[in-house]
């Protein structure tokens, strides 16, 4: 099967992210850098997907393309599709800009400002909410003039207004029935860590995350049930602030409608992409209707929000702050109440990266992109951060794309691995297959260049390395981009580009050693 030609209908339900034929280029004064050349892969729900390769092979550009964060100018995604949760977020990429290439150094880029504005609106509501990213150098990736707390709270307030409003409403209107349900469900759970997770979720849903530990203590004390109930009530009563819940109801409705609007816009975008005129007309009308409705429905709400700005914001700030402390606890930061008010420079590298992760998790993203998250950290911290990411992957069930140049980290972390070279995926397989049964000469070379004391010292061998360097991507080698460094080079390698083909069990490789010599792009 040719992987490059996956049909859209074949996107399975459990593929959270599907990237197809992604092309990203940088239009520089020296020429066009073909940084990503037709990359396709998919990430399943809950999976840790590794991308490995030398520096400059396009790992980070792939990640930034998925987030649509390629610095423009000079970079642009020029083609392909990125499906997140079933929606192609870059389907309109050729409508946003018209690129006319006269020569390598003479490229005219014409931007459609109106469409770019809509695209940015949609993408900014997907970023952080559905996909989050952590970066290589936490000391640079955190804003130096904002406290850790402010940076996490910013993220929480951007995406979680509905759930915050809901939890405040639940807290203020908590009923005996809720408490009884909670007690009966909690008593059914025998496993302590499951119970802890359940209590955590419940406390958060009911807007009282700070008393989660106390609730757990009460539950674990083997007291009689009525007594437990009484203690719980005593814990919960002081949590209720007696605020007017109307404003939260309105906030919830407002943000619900905003989300609806986003959904409609995505559907509209999809119809435009398929040139489905009926769909376009329908969704355009629906977007217009909803916008009109919202204008009248929230007129007083918006006025109230402007007039009561301070009071309105304060309640949400407080709630978001409690959640931020929760998140810092989740990433095992000691003393979260202190850390939340510190500035990034007051923390160690490991703590900074943990805060970064807490920030990324603020809105329960279902995909986390980790771009070399441990490269800048020392070895012991690295191990802790890797453990943390793995734990969170299990705990939250979100997928992770893990980018690194370190094969040892890949072996430790990932389920599946893609090996990238010069803007192409050259091999993709399960982590076991990559290490025990690598096919592509580049992968084999990478594996041989891992420093090993057991073999190299014993046999008095020197460590092997792949001769040559990553090619200049303004003028990449013709055919297979690896051919100048390949030990198994054949004539066909210079003429035609091998496609990524399945050689069994989902192990895919792009090399003429494993495919029909005629099966390539000229």
């Amino acid at each position, binding site marked *: 099967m040719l992987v490059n030609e996956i049909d859209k209908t074949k996107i399975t339900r459990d593929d959270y992210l599907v990237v197809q034929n992604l092309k990203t280029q940088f239009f520089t004064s020296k020429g066009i850098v073909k940084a990503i050349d037709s990359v396709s892969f998919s990430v399943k729900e809950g999976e840790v997907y590794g991308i490995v390769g030398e520096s400059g092979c396009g790992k980070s550009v792939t990640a*930034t393309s998925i*987030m649509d*964060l390629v*610095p423009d100018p000079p970079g642009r995604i020029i083609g392909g599709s990125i499906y997140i949760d079933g929606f192609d977020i870059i389907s309109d990429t050729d409508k946003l800009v018209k690129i006319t290439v006269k020569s390598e150094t003479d490229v005219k880029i014409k931007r459609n400002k109106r469409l770019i504005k809509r695209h*940015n*609106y949609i993408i*900014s*509501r*997907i*970023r*952080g*909410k559905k996909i*989050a*990213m952590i*970066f290589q*150098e936490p000391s*640079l*990736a*955190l*804003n*130096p*003039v*904002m*406290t850790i707390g402010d940076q996490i709270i*910013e*993220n929480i307030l*951007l*995406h979680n207004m509905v759930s915050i409003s809901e939890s405040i409403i639940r807290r203020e209107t908590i009923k005996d029935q809720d408490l009884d349900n909670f007690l009966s469900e909690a008593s059914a759970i025998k496993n302590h860590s499951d119970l802890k997770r359940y209590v955590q979720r419940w406390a958060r849903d009911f807007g009282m995350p700070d008393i989660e530990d106390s609730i757990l203590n009460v539950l674990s004390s083997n007291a009689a049930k009525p007594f437990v109930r009484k203690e719980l009530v005593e814990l919960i009563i002081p949590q209720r602030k007696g605020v007017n819940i109307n404003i939260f109801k309105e906030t919830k409705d407002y943000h619900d409608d905003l989300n609806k609007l986003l959904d409609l816009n995505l559907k509209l975008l999809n119809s435009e992409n398929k040139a489905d005129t009926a769909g376009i007309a329908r969704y355009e009308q629906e977007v217009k209707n909803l916008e009109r409705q919202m204008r009248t429905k929230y007129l007083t709400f918006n006025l109230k929000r402007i007039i009561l700005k301070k009071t309105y914001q304060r309640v949400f700030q407080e709630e978001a702050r409690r959640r931020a402390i929760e998140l810092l606890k989740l990433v095992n930061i000691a003393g979260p109440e202190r850390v939340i008010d510190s*500035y990034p*420079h007051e923390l160690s590298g490991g703590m900074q990266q943990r805060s*970064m992760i807490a*920030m990324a998790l*603020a*809105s329960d993203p279902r995909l986390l992109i980790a771009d070399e998250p441990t490269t800048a950290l020392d070895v012991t911290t690295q191990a802790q951060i890797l453990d943390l990411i793995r734990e969170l992957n299990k705990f939250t069930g979100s997928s992770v794309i893990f980018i690194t140049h370190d094969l040892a980290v890949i072996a430790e972390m990932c389920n599946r691995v893609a090996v990238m070279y010069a803007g192409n995926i050259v091999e993709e397989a399960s982590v076991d297959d990559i290490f025990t049964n690598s096919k592509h000469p580049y992968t084999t070379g990478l594996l041989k260049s891992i420093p090993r004391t057991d073999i190299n010292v014993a046999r008095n061998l020197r460590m092997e390395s792949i001769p040559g360097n990553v090619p200049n991507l303004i003028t990449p080698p013709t055919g297979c981009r690896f051919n100048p460094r390949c030990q198994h080079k054949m004539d066909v390698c210079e003429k035609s580009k091998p496609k990524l083909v399945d050689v069994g069990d989902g192990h895919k490789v792009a090399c003429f050693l494993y495919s029909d010599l005629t099966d390539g792009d000229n």
Partner: protein
Amino acid sequence: MELRYYIIRRLLLLIPTILGLTVLTFLLMRAFPNYQLVQGYINPHSSIPVSVQMLNAEKALGLNYPPPVQYIYYLKDLFLGNWGQMSTTFYSGPVLRGIEYFFPNTVQLAIFSIILSIIIAIPLGTYIGARPNTAADQAGRVFSLAFYAMPTFWLALILQIILGQDVIYGNPFGIFPIQGSFQPTSINPLHPPSWLINTQLGTVLSSPTHLILIDALIHGDFAVASSAFMSLVLPVVTLTLTLLAGILRFVRAGMVDAASQEYVKTARSKGVPERLVIKRHIRKNALIPTVTVLGLLFASLLGGVVTIEYVFGYPGIGLFGLNAVLQNQIFGVMGTTLIFGLILVMANLIVDVVYALIDPRIRY
């Protein structure tokens, strides 16, 4: 809390700085021969012979002691407010009183132009800095480079030609007076206001603040007030344009630099809307280098003030000092130097405190 201690420590550090300043002015002053120093103390119309007057003055100033002792006398005089006498065609009398008369006008010019240029430069710099290499940005850069490079006096003259009143030939756009702090024609000749003092030397002073605009408003004389306001426009516009150009350059450069930082990418990856990325993440960081150069720009503003006051005949400390220089009034020169030095030291203190306020990485 910590910031309060930092400010107190910085204030204490002011003492040695100011003492150093006085040493400098003292040494500069001693570079002149005695007969020049005491010139302001000689009254040629007095019945006492000039040589006796000179001796008395030397004695009063402690000039017959060795220099270190003289310095102590000098310090004592400074603290007691006895900054020496001067007599020029612009002002005659005690130096300190002259400073009291003319300094407020300079402060008024400086404050108006600083506030104006900051409230224009920061939003404008944010706007163009967030859109590097667009037409708006290019226009902004040309504007700021042009006015930054333009000599202040030349800009002042050009503005006078374009917008200044021309009583002889007439100027269609000439709505602003080009000389003085107000126009004497705005005074009602039948009832000259009592709060205006004519110094007989061509300058008119007002009480109680010595700022004609404010004093006229206090006394409800709107004709004089509007005339004073109109007279302020051209000097303030000149100073503002120069200062604005400088600040704009740094805000823009800071914006472009901050926009390329990794934390901006982080903010975008969180889904922060572009408007807030610019306001919350880029601009906050861009203002840090801007504040640093504000101190330096302030020094150049003081230099500009002297020229501006001369070109516009505006009775401020710059014109006061310039006259002292031209007419060999050493005490007047030293008084001006001391005041300029004090302003610079204070401006740097304010810049440092603001810097500590906006950049949490500063250790104090």
